C-alpha cells in the first residue's frame, strides 16, 4: 500500500513538472511571436504604402498599418527562429589609449634603430659592487678618537623614485 501511494505521488509530481515545462515553452513561444509582431509593426518603413509583410504566421492586425504588398515588390524573407532567449555577450572594442603620437619623441634614436654596432658592456665595468646599506649615523664617540671615523651614508628621508624599465 505504501509503495502504491509513493508511486502515485511520484506520478503526480512528474505530471506537474512536465505540464509546467510545456506551459513555459508554449508561453515563451507565444511571447516571441508577439515580440516579432511588434517588431514588424515598428520596424517596417512606412513609405508610399509599401509595407513589407512578415512572411510567417504573424500578420499586422491593426487596420492603419495593414497594407497590401504590391505585386512588383518581392517581400523580404525574414526568418524568425524561435529558440531559447538569446544571450548576447557584448565584447567591447579594444580599449586602447594613445598617450603619445608617433614621431613626437624621437630626439634620440632608440637602440632598436641605431646603426651603431651594439656591444654588451665590458665585464670589468659591471663588477658587482659591495652592497650599499643605509644605516643611522654612528653615535658621538665619548673617548677621544685616534682618527676621525669615516662618515656613514645618510639614509634617504623620502622614498626614492625607482625607474620602471627593461631589466638591466
Amino acid at each position, binding site marked *: 500500500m505504501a509503495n502504491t501511494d509513493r508511486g502515485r505521488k511520484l506520478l503526480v509530481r512528474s505530471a506537474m513538472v512536465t505540464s509546467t515545462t510545456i506551459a513555459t515553452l508554449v508561453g515563451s513561444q507565444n511571447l516571441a511571436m508577439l515580440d516579432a509582431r511588434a517588431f514588424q509593426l515598428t520596424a517596417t518603413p512606412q513609405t508610399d504604402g509599401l509595407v513589407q509583410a512578415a512572411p510567417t504566421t504573424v500578420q499586422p492586425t491593426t487596420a492603419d498599418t495593414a497594407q497590401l504588398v504590391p505585386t512588383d515588390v518581392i517581400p523580404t524573407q525574414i526568418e524568425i527562429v524561435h529558440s531559447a532567449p538569446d544571450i548576447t555577450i557584448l565584447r567591447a572594442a579594444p580599449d586602447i589609449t594613445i598617450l603619445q603620437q608617433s614621431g613626437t619623441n624621437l630626439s634620440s634614436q632608440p637602440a*632598436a634603430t641605431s646603426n651603431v654596432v*651594439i656591444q654588451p658592456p665590458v665585464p670589468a665595468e659591471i663588477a658587482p659592487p659591495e652592497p650599499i646599506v643605509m644605516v*643611522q649615523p654612528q653615535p658621538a664617540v665619548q673617548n677621544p678618537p685616534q682618527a676621525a671615523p669615516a662618515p656613514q651614508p645618510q639614509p634617504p628621508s623620502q622614498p626614492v623614485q625607482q625607474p620602471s624599465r627593461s*631589466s*638591466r
Partner: protein
Amino acid sequence: MLHFIEFRAMGCGVTIQLQAPEEAAELVASLPEQIAAIEAQLTRFKPDSDLMQFNDQAGEWVQVSQTLYENILAAKQAARITDGLYNPMVLPAMIANGYDRSFEHIGAVSAQSAVEVPGWREIEVKASIRQIRIQVGTAIDLGGIGKGWTAKHIADQLAPIGPCLINFGGDMVATGAPDGYPGWPVAIEDPFTGDAFASIYLKDSSIATSGTDYRRWQGTAGDVYHHIINPNTGKPATTDVVSATVIHPHAPTAEAYAKAVLIQGTENGLSWLSNQWHGCGLTFRQDGAVLSTSNFNQYLQERTTTT
C-alpha cells in the same frame, strides 16, 4: 625610518626600500645573501645550480627544492594564462640565438636555424612528492619570471614589518605606501631617451617591463638579436614594441604579461591585455608612439612633457 639598500643580483641592479623601525636594519642587510641563495638555485648560468642539475636529468622524475618547485609551477601557470606566449621551455632556443651565457659576456652570434620550442604542457608535475619531469632534449629557463617570483618572495617577508618596494632592475613589487604618499613613486622610463615618460604611485601591486632595447646583441651577419623569444617561431620576436610595461597584482603574472604583449605587438598585445584579469599596461612603439590600455590612465598622475 626608511631603510634603503642597493646591490646587484640576477644580472641586474636591485633596490629595496622598507619603511620600518630601526630594528629592521639587520633583516634588510641580510637580504643580498638571501637573494644570492635564491639565484644560486634558479640561474641557468651556473652548471651546478638546482635548475641546471634538473635540466641535466631531463627524461627522469626529479625531486626538486621548494624554491625551484614553486618557480616551475609559477612558470607553468604563466604559460597557461598567456596561452603559451610565455613559455619556460625556450632555453634551447635562447642558446641557439646566442643567449648561452650571461648577457654581458655575449659575443657575436652566427646565424642559426630556428629551434622548435616544446609545449609548456610537457612539464609534468607530481605535486604530492614535489617531483617534476621534462622530456629528453628539453630544458627550462626561469629568466622570464624568476625576478618577479623573488621580488614577491622578499616583499611577502617584509610586508608584515612595513611598506616596502622591491625593485629588480625595473621589475618591482610594492606593498603598502610610505607615510604621506599614496603609493611608492615609480617612473615609467622612456626607452628612447632614458628620461621619465610618466610617474605613477604603486601600492600593493607590481610592475614589470619587457623590452628589446637593452638585452640585444649582434650577429655575424649584422642582424640584431634580443632575448625575448617567440615560442611559436623559436627566434627573437618580431615586433613593433620597444618596451612593454604591465601593472598587475601578481609579480610573475606581470612579467609574463609584459612578454606576451611584446611578442604580440602593440595593437594585438594591448587588446589582448585589456581582456586579461587585471590587465593594465602600456607600450613604447618603434616609431615613438606610446599607447596604453584605457585603465592605465588611473595611474597617470603626472605626465612628463617634452619641449
